[in-house]
């Protein structure tokens, strides 16, 4: 099957029921997207499909023909995306394992709500578990990312 991942076409030969997560990690070699629960309970595997957040651990790759998949790797490796900048500025990460998913959820939230309230953040990010308990800094960093996103728009 053909998959559009981060703007590149990948041809993969995998079973129809194989979740996108394992295609990304074990076949395509993009390991930034993480396995945490395998049943859409923790959000570590969050990626975007046509811009909307999905849990890749329960999304069969075969359902994604013609759709655009974007992963944490699409945000770039220099940390310059507003959400990454905010995360670094607010020293969010600890063990870091859940943060790809947290960041992808935050990016999706800010796309639909450029200035989210605390309640918006609670609702959008409640599906992403962090066992290190970085939640308080995630909240503040999402607000900061909203500010940085606005600055970017003004600059543009």
């Amino acid at each position, binding site marked *: 099957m053909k998959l559009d991942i981060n703007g590149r076409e990948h041809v993969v030969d*995998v*079973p129809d029921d*194989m*979740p996108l997560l*394992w295609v990304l*990690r*074990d*076949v395509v*070699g*993009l*390991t*930034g997207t*993480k*396995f*945490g*629960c*395998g*049943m859409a*309970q*923790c959000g*570590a595997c969050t990626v975007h499909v046509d811009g909307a957040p999905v849990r890749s651990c329960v999304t069969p790759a075969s359902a994604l023909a013609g759709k655009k998949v974007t*992963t*944490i*790797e699409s*945000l*770039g490796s*220099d*940390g310059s995306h507003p*959400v*990454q900048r905010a*995360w*670094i*500025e607010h*020293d*969010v*990460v*600890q*063990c*870091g*394992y*859940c*943060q*790809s998913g947290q*960041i992808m959820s935050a990016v999706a939230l800010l796309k639909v709500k450029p200035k989210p309230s605390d309640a918006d*953040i609670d*609702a959008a*990010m*409640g599906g*992403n*578990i*962090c*066992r*290190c*308990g*970085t*939640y*308080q*800094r*995630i*909240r503040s960093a999402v607000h900061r990312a909203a500010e940085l996103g606005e600055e970017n728009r003004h600059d543009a």
Partner: protein
Amino acid sequence: MTRDPGGLLQPSRRQFLATSASLAGGLVIACFVPFGARRLFAQEGAPPAAPAVDPNAFVRIGSDDTITILLKHAEMGQGVWTSLPMVVAEELDCDWTRVRVETAPNAQVYANNAFGIQGTGGSTSTHESFDQMRQAGAMARAMLVEAAAKRWKVDAATCRTENGFVISGAHKASYGELADAAARLKPPQKVVVKDPSKWTLIGKPTRRLDSLAKVTGKAGFGIDVQRPGLLVGVIARCPVFGGTPKRFDATSAKAIPGVVDVVQVPSGIAILANHFWAAKKGREALDVEWNAGAGASLSTPAMRADYRKRADKPGAIAKQAGSVDAVLEAAGTRIEAVYEVPFLAHAPMEPLNCTVEIGKDGCEIWTGTQFQGVDQGVVAGILGIKPEQVKIHTQFLGGGFGRRANPQSDFIAEAVHVAKAANKPVKIVWTREDDIHGGYYRPMWLSRFVAALGADGMPSAWTHTVVGQSIAAGTPFAAGMIKDGVDVTSVEGAADSPYLAAIAAHRVDLHTPESPIPVLWWRSVGHSHTAFVVESFVDELAHAAKVDPLAYRRKLLPADSRNLRALELAAREFGWGKPLAKGHAAGLAAHESFGSHVAQVAELSVEDGRIRVHRVVCAIDCGPVVNPMTIEAQMQSAIAFGLSAALHSEVTFKDGKVEQSNFHDYRVLRLDEMPKVEVHIVKSTEKMGGVGEPGLPPIAPAVANALFALTGKRLRNLPLKLA
């Protein structure tokens, strides 16, 4: 060129090639570890002794001015990737922006000075290596100065260092320029470290050095390891602890496309495939029958009943003073209470995994481990090779919380068995279900208290009977940790409670039942239950005495105690006693663990039958501070972890099987439940303590005490259930 005085310091070839550009002309600081190792696990010796004279390498300086610090501790979120380099850099006077960090290989030179073996845990990392890291930085600096003085033909005393340069009069050279010459010098026998008043980096809020890797998805965790020809495996294990396979047929598992091999190992049957999904499907297809064995009769209600029965009689004495029974007999007011807490899984976000390659010269392991010093011996034992032939590439840990420090190295040993049986490189990955079912839990505990109150409302007698499995029993640490039938970690925080000093007659004793359920240290170990029960019961006594809980603790704790100082700070910053929003109530608790004293005040309400914790004010006295941002993060972190246990998590058994399986029924705290946490650090020149765990113990009792203040109902079991 790098120096390699003991044959231990050479980075692996792979690492060397990857970093050779910055290593060219680099310097490896070799120094002698001047301190005798204090040992956590055995006050009277046990683990392998560190060589008396041992070369040590923590700093490399590249000709491009890059400073590479080798980190002997595992980074599992606790921030040592930043705080330990800060300590080295402080003494080295280098440019902080040029500091890079690499995980050290496994070698005795990287032993934890508190353990005697390489390992990360017990909230020891910063305080056990603080002096060692200062010395490493100071030695490197001294060698750079000496190299500069020789080059300029000046007295070394005329040289000063500043932000990565050595300067003397008009002379100035960067560390990178001097690194090659410095590498040829003999390390000084003795160096003088800075007076704390001169610190510019230690104590300064400093952002993490691992953020960029972790916000870009580039950070390498064990589960991300990719190697040529690597097979991914999952293991079918008996659903009952202690069970074994009765029979199995691999035909249907092998019929799954992608499945390559099926092998039996001591812990179960491994299905190996080209990718995880095929391995998991193969396991689902596997035809296997188990002999469950004696564990099949395990049930949580029966275990609880058994624990209650045991607690009726005193167990092995952990601490006693005075004529407890006589005082209790004569007492006017007797207060009794029984508390219970469940088995808990660590459930780190990164499921357990381990990659193994066995070659003709030895074995290479890629994993996130807290216990390299144990693991290499276990692996060597399985393969019949020498521990030095086991090379461990420690990856970032996607959470540890104690689970990745296993005296049996269970998840590593299992992967080695599979690689050996299959004769192929393998990566074994646990599913979340494997993790919740697979054990090594925080033990289930029961505590029974009886106290007598005097006419003044203060306790005149106190007995505390603890019932629960020993973590040390049956491990190599038993000899060091179990004294006169008492595993010290079972009663830590109870037998040494600071309240006992004010109670003339007291007894703390312990029953240690056995079961096939494997148990392990879980963030804050024994304190995870003793703080809850002791601080809840003290609250009960305060209520019985009709005294405010803060005032009662002021009477019980020595006036100058660090617990009380932390408590006063937390109470003041919270505004203890001031009116709260309607429907809100507050509770407090203070507890010492791992050398630090933490007090917390929690404010909560009950909304739609759910406990909502709104605000936690936390004060910590951990002695001298390396990085305040680390401490603040660790307090938030421990509070979140402790709230998971206080409000949600439990592992229970029915017919020998674990009843929970994943995050839908083994619930943990989510973002929308995170209270606002305010952290205050007590200015302290006391001995340095840990910060990874001490923030956890007080949160459950603070919440339970607040709930009592709100509802008048005392909940004595975790997780707290309103109805």
